[in-house]
């Protein structure tokens, strides 16, 4: 009785380690029955069926209701997608959006980590900065769009600032929480053994904060995709947001869908690459279980 159970737990673990996303793990309802290979095969079949169903319903709905223009079926959308890929239009737009996100994300993360570590380490800094951080984190980045456009025009600077704003507070708050979560006995121990402040920070605080910082960065990366779309719709000559907006203006919904799908794929890929990089280069600091959307 224990044999098959242990085996299952192992494969579940392996499945989660090899990166099939966190959701498809852990079947807790003590499944007794078919062998493991048979079950993974069934899973794959059901997954294929799921995607198939989605496409079938989509195709069927748009064809029967005659909404080819307003709600293009997958065949039409995919053809348009392939067209855009062939002309290189989609790749170009995606590249522009990604570059914008990464520039802002990089600057914002650095600033956020710096601010958060300062706030976590020094009570004075925390008391001074906390009211602002708590106020601004409730003001969505998009609300700043209007003033930023007034001040900086509709150029790259404005968009980068919005992404930096999107990133900085969530990273700072997570870094601060990370510092607060360092067990006090650990720092006390290090001090007792004669470590200097700098050593304690480098050897204890920083490693202990890393998972928190990474979690914050991952959420910020997801939010950046939200900000960039609006920023590009409201004043850019390129990028996926611009492409989507063009689709709306010319009532080319297939183009809108293609842009959205490309955005989803890029979002997924950047999240996957980020997690992979953390696991590859900072595995010991990887957050235990990350559930960000």
């Amino acid at each position, binding site marked *: 009785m224990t044999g098959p159970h242990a085996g299952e737990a192992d494969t579940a673990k392996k499945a989660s380690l090899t990166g099939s*996303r966190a*959701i*498809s*793990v852990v079947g*807790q309802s*003590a499944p007794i029955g078919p062998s493991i290979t048979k079950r993974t095969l*069934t899973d794959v079949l*059901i*997954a294929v*069926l*799921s995607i198939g169903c989605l496409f079938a319903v989509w195709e069927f709905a748009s064809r029967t209701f005659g909404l080819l223009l307003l709600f293009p079926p997958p065949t039409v959308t995919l053809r348009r997608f392939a067209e855009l890929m062939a002309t290189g239009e989609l790749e170009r737009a995606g590249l522009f959006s990604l570059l914008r996100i990464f520039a802002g994300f990089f600057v914002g993360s650095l600033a956020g980590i710096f601010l958060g570590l300062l706030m976590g*380490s020094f*009570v*004075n800094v*925390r*008391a*001074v*900065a*906390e*009211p*602002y951080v*708590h*106020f*601004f984190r*409730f*003001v*969505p980045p*998009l*609300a700043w*769009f*209007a*003033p930023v456009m*007034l*001040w900086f025009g509709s150029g790259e600077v404005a968009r980068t600032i919005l992404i930096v704003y999107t990133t900085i507070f969530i990273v700072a708050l997570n870094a601060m929480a990370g510092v607060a979560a*360092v067990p*006090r006995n650990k*720092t006390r121990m290090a*001090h007792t053994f004669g470590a200097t402040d700098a050593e*304690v920070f480098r050897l204890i605080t920083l490693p202990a904060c890393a998972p928190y910082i990474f979690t914050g960065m991952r959420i910020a990366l*997801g*939010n950046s995709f*939200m900000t960039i*779309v*609006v920023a590009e*719709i*409201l004043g850019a000559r390129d990028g996926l947001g611009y492409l989507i907006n063009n689709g*709306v203006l010319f009532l080319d*919904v297939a183009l*809108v*869908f293609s842009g*959205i*799908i490309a*955005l*989803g*794929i890029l*979002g*997924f890929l950047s*999240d996957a690459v980020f997690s992979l990089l953390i696991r590859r280069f900072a595995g010991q600091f990887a957050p235990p279980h990350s*559930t960000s*959307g």
Partner: protein
Amino acid sequence: MSNPRGQAIQRFAIDAMPRSRAFFLSISSIVAGLLIWQISATVLFDSILYPSALSTLVALASEMTRGNLGKDLTITFGRVVAGFAMGSFLGASLGLLMGSFRSVRTFFSPMVNFFRFITPIAWVAPATIWFGIGETSKLFLVVYATLFIVLINTMTGISHIHRDRFRMARSFGANPLEIFWRITIPASVPFIITGMRIGLGNSFMTVIGAEMLAGNDGLGYLIYSSRLFYRSDVMFAGIILLGVMGFAADWLFVLLRRRALSRYEVLS
């Protein structure tokens, strides 16, 4: 410098400072910030582009008394509340189903994993084409913004329940329905709440974006359209109101969680 070790330990401890001093520092920091804002606005910059703290306050008061701001505020808040409630309910229900039944999970996982990476804002465009700029499209967007984060958190919650608890319940003769009602739901509540809190933030962001891109009322529209009339004081008043509203909503949420749901041991 006489006792660097002792000072170091104090500095790393969060609660080393007396509360009164931390409070005083925070208050003076806010006052200093407002002063810097006021002085920099009156001395350095054009008041059309960068309104001072006082003129923002005046705009806030006058727009409030004229009823514009209050109206937009209610509209935006109503949209968030309606969509958030629906999205949370749908997300939690679907999450409970997906977490409890392997076949449901396997079936819906690919779809959920696809859609959760598409930001709600991207759907503004199709939603506007399909539903117009009215309430339906806003509701759709806010539901979408809430649904997936709540769903994923619910599922995570269920996957964190220890297997032994199910085994125990079964050996005491509980049927699947009882297990679902007495173990699965209570144990996943903290995770649902966490997801809802993140979803609330996303809802605000989405509704503001939707009102800016396609709308003719609400705070997002107010802020964005003020740009066209160079009323940056109204713009700032809207932004401040938005921050206050987001803060209040989050605070209410935390309060509710502490009051009503403390027995579920919600983690903060």
